[in-house]
């Protein structure tokens, strides 16, 4: 006979679970900071030399003394470990430093473009999540049915379309030919639609595939047969039981998708001439603008790990089995 857990017994494992998830969050962010820092500052190439080279385009050079002075000015002369710790401390305090290239505080540069990227990524997810859920639900309604056979390959097809090509196609049709939306900039809602769709489609392909697979799998579980045998209508079995049980992998992937969406903004923002973190990242990497690259990397890590933290914390609420001690899930 199994003992029903009392309230007190249930609290500790859940608390431990929550604390562990916060720990993972911190580890991911710190790891990204460390890796980005090492890539940017421990490599032999000199960001000051790159900055000066770009500014002069070869018309007149700077003396080694001037370069040394500038390195000092940007704090590049300190030992690596000192900079590593110091910069992390300042990041925690919200001081992101100053861009080598533009002389602008990194916080201002990020502040100017991050809302655009968050709006784009948010809109893309708002399109991708319902779209993929709907597509998967429709496809898997009857495993092996005509609809299933017709739609099952749609995600693979969508995933095979190159993102920039899709973007250009959308631009050509809806901006340049039909003139429904402006081709560049994309301030306001009208400008957000096309890039959001272009970003959402490839993302929803993966989500659809996973949810479809998981719906198909759950349908084969014995409890579904049992529910049907007891006379429950298929619609109720499918939506209330199959779909709910198939949701967890979908949710996990949705969390990981945030990373994919953020990465996708690089191409989408370029094709649609939108300002955003993706564009800023590309231009900063090209010229080794280390403070900007580092800040974007850490920001991306915080958003990505943060979303996954939220989803991890949602698990126990969505699936009562996870809350039960000894289920092995609260590990």
């Amino acid at each position: 006979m199994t003992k029903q857990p009392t309230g007190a017994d249930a609290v500790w494992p859940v608390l431990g679970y929550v604390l562990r998830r916060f720990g993972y969050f911190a580890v991911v962010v710190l790891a990204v900071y460390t890796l980005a820092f090492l890539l940017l500052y421990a490599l032999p190439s000199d960001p000051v030399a790159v900055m000066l080279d770009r500014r002069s385009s070869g018309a007149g050079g700077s003396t080694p003394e001037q370069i040394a002075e500038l390195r000092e000015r940007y704090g590049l002369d300190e030992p690596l470990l000192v900079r590593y710790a110091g910069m992390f401390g300042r990041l925690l305090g919200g001081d992101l430093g100053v861009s080598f290239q533009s002389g602008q505080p990194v916080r201002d540069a990020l502040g100017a473009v991050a809302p655009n990227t968050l709006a784009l990524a948010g809109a893309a997810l708002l399109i991708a999540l319902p779209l993929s859920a709907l597509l998967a639900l429709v496809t898997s309604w009857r495993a092996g049915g005509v609809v299933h056979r017709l739609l099952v390959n749609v995600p693979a097809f969508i995933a095979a379309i190159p993102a920039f090509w899709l973007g250009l196609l959308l631009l050509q049709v809806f901006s340049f030919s039909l003139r429904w939306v402006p081709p560049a900039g994309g301030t306001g809602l009208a400008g957000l639609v096309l890039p959001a769709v272009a970003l959402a489609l490839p993302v929803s392909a993966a989500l659809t595939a996973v949810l479809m697979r998981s719906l198909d799998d759950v349908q084969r579980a014995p409890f579904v047969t049992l529910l049907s045998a007891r006379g429950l209508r298929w619609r109720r079995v499918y939506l209330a039981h199959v779909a709910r049980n198939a949701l967890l992998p979908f949710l996990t992937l949705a969390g990981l998708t945030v990373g994919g969406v953020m990465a996708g903004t690089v191409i989408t923002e370029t094709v649609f001439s939108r300002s955003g973190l993706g564009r800023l990242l590309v231009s900063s990497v090209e010229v080794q603008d280390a403070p900007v690259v580092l800040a974007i990397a850490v920001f991306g890590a915080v958003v990505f790990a943060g979303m996954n933290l939220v989803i991890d914390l949602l698990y126990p609420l969505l699936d009562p089995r996870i809350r039960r001690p000894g289920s092995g899930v609260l590990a």
Partner: protein
Amino acid sequence: MTRAPRGLAAAATAAALVLTGCGAGQDSASSDDGHLTLAYGWYPTCFDYAQSNPFAIFGRQVLDTLLSENPGTGAIEPYLAESWEVLDDGRVYEFTVRDSVTFSNGEELTAQVVADNFETLARLAEQGVSPTPGAYLRGFDHAQAVDERTVRVVFAEPNAGFLQANTEGQFGIIAPESLARTPEQRCAEGTIGSGPFVVDEAVQDERVEYVRRDGYDWAPESFGRTGEAALEGVTIQIVPEESVRAAGVIAGDYDLAYSITQSGLSQAEGHDDIATVLAPNRGVVNNFVINTTDPILADVAVRQALQHGIDREELVSTFYGAGVEPATGVVSSGHPFYTDHADLLRYDPGLSRGILDDAGWVEGADGIRVKDGRRLEIALTFVGLDIGTAAAGWEYVQSRLADIGVALELNQVSDAEQVDLRTAGDWQLAVVQGAARGDADGIAAFYSTELTTWAGQAPRPEVDELLALQASTVDPDQRRALVDEAVAAILEQAYGIPLFDSAQVLLVRDSVAELTFPVNSWEPILYRVEKG
């Protein structure tokens, strides 16, 4: 300014756009007569022209310079300075500043402001943040206001290029308010000038908006226009993808687009209302710089064999499109110090082979020459921007050089790696385009081993001396003779291998008139531009 256009994958892109039948109509941007919308690929990382060569187009519109260059005659003419005098053999320059000129913040232009401009530039140069004006100010001692309208700039030694430098945007005169800013602030905020336009709004990676400066009335005569700019406003829209820039011009969203390559041109084919405009370059052409301290390349025979072993005509016609011409000298043909040296650069593989034979480089079993046990292997470093063209072109050069027994190894690097290799002197051949400057000092900055940023070049006394001497020779004819002598020596000794000259290619709607590029291809004088 040297910046190669690039695309995500131009060919596939063009195909996509052709498939969708880029027909479309006009209007939107074009229908507004007073406003010009220009599509450009890159947002400026720095708004201060003195600190940032690559973004000339943004700075130039708000700035005036002391002098201007007549695009027809090349003569130096008044601009913010009414008149000037060269004293003490080019050690002292006196400018009489024009009356009643104001900056866009209301501050007045005086001799003192001009003197402060030069002093500030010299200080920025000393800090190392503005290398180009630093080069223009070589030998600067001080600048002072003699009276309300006269400013005197004094050099420790003659600076023959100084007058021409005063036509370049890096010497744009800025307001006292901007002079008081730190270099970082100047970059981030931009500088306040007296030019025909004022920045109205700058949105990171999206666009920069300019409005016409009310009451502007001091354009140089050669601009052929007086009073305010013809356009009420200008938008420079940042459109990173070339195919989108081209499609935007075709659809009428943009009046003109910069940095167009063959794929953009084919998009625009068949559209009668769109013209292809070539904005000529005026600088040291694309070339191979040579590390002359390298044991193999120290041998003049090897360098000369390279000089005559590359078929520039075929390289250009096969791998580059409109706007690219084979080099016939060290600088662009529109450069005031251009001399045609096509003969010294002619393709003659027989000659190359003979030179190598005579120098004792003997062909080995694999066709690659050997001398004293050393194979004739040379590494070519180039920055990989374009996905296709660049690398393919160098592969072609590789095969041509293999014909004469030279093994060329291709080494594609990033911008940052290139800077590292260069400063460390750890390179053999590299592909570089010199900065655009319409003065002999631009040649000197590239080919004098005392001035070049390409470390590792052994001093070449005869050329270095000539280039130093021309920099302090004020007499135009004497100066020209010195430069010609230096250039001939550079090409004969093959201290550099000029390859091709590339103009900027633009797509322009036919509603745009009076578009000119008197200083260089990156500085259209939008003040003159009209729309109809």
